[in-house]
């Protein structure tokens, strides 16, 4: 029995932390078990107690809001009288804002469908798992792809400009894209050794971060514009302007 074993045996001797546990570690998987002795707490009572306190605080906050502000209730539904503007619930106003620029099949079906599909696919993409800075590897190739995507996306978002039915403010969806693209260009010109903490941060962002941040930015901007800046005929109003 002089040949090397392909496993090692170990035993966690800290009985207060973990029940007795024998591990057999084959060499191939040893990286999996090179684990820190992380401090653990028990779900009951510690985690459950915190969860209950968190939910209680939330409940108190919502009860106070419910006591102070009444839910809106307008007149009886009247199919013959369309309010202007007719707005969807707030979480769909980003979508409704897009419907202002693009034909319904694009803004109402294609884009939301792609968003849901993209969300599902996120964790299955290898690029996301690596979590390396986007431009740290294959810089030239990735920059080229980035420019093609950025220009294509910009043309898509500028498309309403050439549609005579859409008047001004077509750039609401375009500006966030422009800002994110600008930050990505800055990231491609930053190195992880940069003296500026902000540029070090940018340089280390992976692709998934950029895609999600762009999505979040667009979602917030479109929803806020749809909620507060749109009045009769889906025209531009300022939040303080009565209509």
């Amino acid at each position, binding site marked *: 029995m002089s040949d090397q074993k392909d496993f090692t045996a170990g035993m966690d001797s800290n009985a*207060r932390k973990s029940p007795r546990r024998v591990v057999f570690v084959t060499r191939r998987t040893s*990286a999996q*078990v*090179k*684990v*820190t*002795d*992380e*401090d*653990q*707490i*028990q*779900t*009951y*009572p*510690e*985690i459950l107690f*915190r*969860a209950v306190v*968190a*939910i209680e605080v*939330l*409940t108190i906050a*919502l009860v106070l*809001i*419910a*006591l102070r502000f*009444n*839910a809106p*209730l*307008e007149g*009886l*539904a*009247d*199919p013959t*009288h*369309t*309010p202007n503007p*007719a*707005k*969807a*619930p707030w*979480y*769909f106003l980003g979508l*409704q804002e897009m419907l202002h620029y693009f034909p*319904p*099949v694009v803004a*109402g*079906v294609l884009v939301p469908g792609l968003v849901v599909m993209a*969300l*599902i696919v*996120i*964790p*299955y993409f290898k690029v*996301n*798992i690596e*979590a390396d800075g986007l431009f740290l590897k294959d810089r030239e190739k990735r920059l080229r792809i980035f420019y093609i995507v950025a220009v294509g996306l910009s043309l898509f978002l500028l498309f309403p400009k050439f549609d005579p039915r859409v008047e001004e403010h077509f750039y609401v969806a375009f500006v966030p894209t422009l800002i994110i693209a600008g930050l990505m260009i800055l990231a491609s010109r930053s190195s992880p050794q940069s003296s500026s903490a902000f540029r070090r*941060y940018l340089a280390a962002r992976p692709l998934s971060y950029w895609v*999600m941040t762009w999505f*979040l930015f667009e979602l917030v901007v479109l929803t806020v514009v749809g909620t507060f800046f749109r009045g009769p005929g889906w025209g531009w109003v300022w939040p303080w302007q009565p209509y």
Partner: protein
Amino acid sequence: MAKESTKNAGDYFDELRRTRVWRSVFRSGTGSSTLHRALAIQQNVFLHLFPTKARRRMASFSATWYLGTLTFGTFLILVATGIPLMFYYHPSVPQAYADTKDFQFVVSSGMFLRNLHRWSAHAMVFLVFAHMFKVFYRGAYRPPREFNWVIGVVLLLITLLLSYTGYLLPWDQLAYWAITVGSNIASAVPVLGNKIHFMMLGGNAVNANALLRFYVLHCMILPLAALLFVAIHFWRIRKDGGLYTHQSEPATIASKSTSTQPAGEAAR
């Protein structure tokens, strides 16, 4: 007299826990040892979805902001306020509107119940989105947790549908036209658009059929679907190795440990 006063409430509770009836209900037994506390989770049909232990750093506020917990909290509030609302509500036209008015002026605490239900619904939609982005920026969607992320996306869609179907129920102008605007989007689907639109509303426009359909979906089908997927969502946290923060991710809390943490090791 003095002898009796030494017995405090905790002692009475301990006594209660030792009774035959209590023991028949809670099988984990009495005691405060680590084993008993683990059994309290493991032997409970609801709590056994969770791991018996969790990493200490994941209990800190900055790790998760408790967004998943809070989302579940809003769901509980919505069930608790939704059931009494159902007692007074008829999903028919125009009675639905009259019932909603009654919440304001006739039903005791009706206004409060409706307010709490509505604001909690908005809070739930907001918290679900916040939870999703927080999980993303933490990197907690990475393998082996990728399928739980997908279940989370399903729960996001269920939440939006729950909120959307509930929006019609007051049957006022706001409800009617919001649903009209939203449902018209379905017509834009190529080929099947009008069929889907018709199936959704039970007609070519928002009408009494749509109200009934939305009511059934809102009070019955969608909450049950949500409950089922929430159960899987919680259970998968345990199966996928507990709450987790990738240490290289931004906004990760400073960890006391030094070496890297492999996925799916602890707290199974």
